[in-house]
């Protein structure tokens, strides 16, 4: 249960970025979480509901995108998706594979409201 720590990381980074833009509100936070990390979605949302009130992200929607495990075989070059088990190359059965994706703990983007005075300039 370290989702509290993860969510406080998400909030700190999002709120800092939003402040730098003088945003008045964060509407949405998108995160990418690898399937090979120890993060549970429900606990993440629970922690977000507990920690976000009183911050710029109060009322924001937390969107969690899951990234499946993917490795590349060092010997035959095959790229393949996998879960936690059976990480050997399905093409040549080699165990010498490099993990490419699946351990992400990343904030992808935030959606913010800017104060009215700034909105015009930033809209395309």
């Amino acid at each position: 249960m370290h989702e509290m720590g993860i969510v406080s990381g998400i909030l700190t980074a999002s709120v800092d970025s939003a402040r730098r833009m003088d945003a008045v509100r964060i509407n949405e936070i998108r995160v990418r979480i690898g399937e090979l990390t120890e993060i549970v979605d429900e606990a993440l949302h629970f922690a977000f509901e507990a920690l976000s009130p009183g911050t710029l992200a109060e009322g924001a929607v937390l969107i969690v995108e899951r990234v499946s495990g993917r490795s590349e075989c060092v010997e035959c070059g095959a790229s393949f998706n996998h879960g936690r088990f059976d990480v050997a190359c399905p093409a040549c059965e080699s165990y010498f594979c490099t993990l490419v994706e699946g351990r992400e703990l990343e904030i992808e983007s935030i959606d913010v409201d800017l104060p009215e005075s700034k909105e015009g300039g930033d809209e395309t």
Partner: protein
Amino acid sequence: MRVDLSQPILDRNERFAAANRALFDEHQVFVLDVLASPGAGKTSTILATIAALRDRYRIAVIEGDIASDIDAQRIKAQGVPAVQINTGGACHLESDMIRRAVDTLEIADIDLLIVENVGNLVCPTDFDLGEHAKVMILSVPEGHDKPYKYPNIFARAEAIVLNKYDTLPVFDFDEAEFREVVHRLNPRVPVFPLSATKGQGVDAWAEWLIGRIESQWAVRRPQGD
């Protein structure tokens, strides 16, 4: 307005971890992060490792626990510098805690720094401390099916110690099945059956650790002509 951030959630932890690693590399301090459940024998294994390697390396230990300094006292009783970190409820160590603990040690007098993480098979795996290797200890009484339930820690360990191996005859521990599932998760990981308190098997583990430490610095040493 959507703003692209693409930044690590554990940005702060990763920055401290990178700084720790740079400090350890500068002083050639090899840092071993030891992960296991409560009661698997982390401290006993560390004590056995100290006994096996203290003539070769100057060793120090950082003990992570939710409360108390019982473990640090056990290490200090062997004449080895030890710092206790109390996380006060947190289930894992983070890289800034390591930095604060290291600041209380004489880093120039250390070759091998062993970090005993908080007893937990889940959370510590997601936090980089700036260590050179994470190893995990499973004890025979915990059962051979642990890798099915907590795969990540077995997948990420560079070596696995199978402790309390002397109790194998009295537990229903299927070693062949254990090795098979570990192999599926982490095909190249070595497994060291040992009994930390009785001493059997410690030599093979200590030999692996020596090799791992030597290879860490061998790749960094400038090549001669």
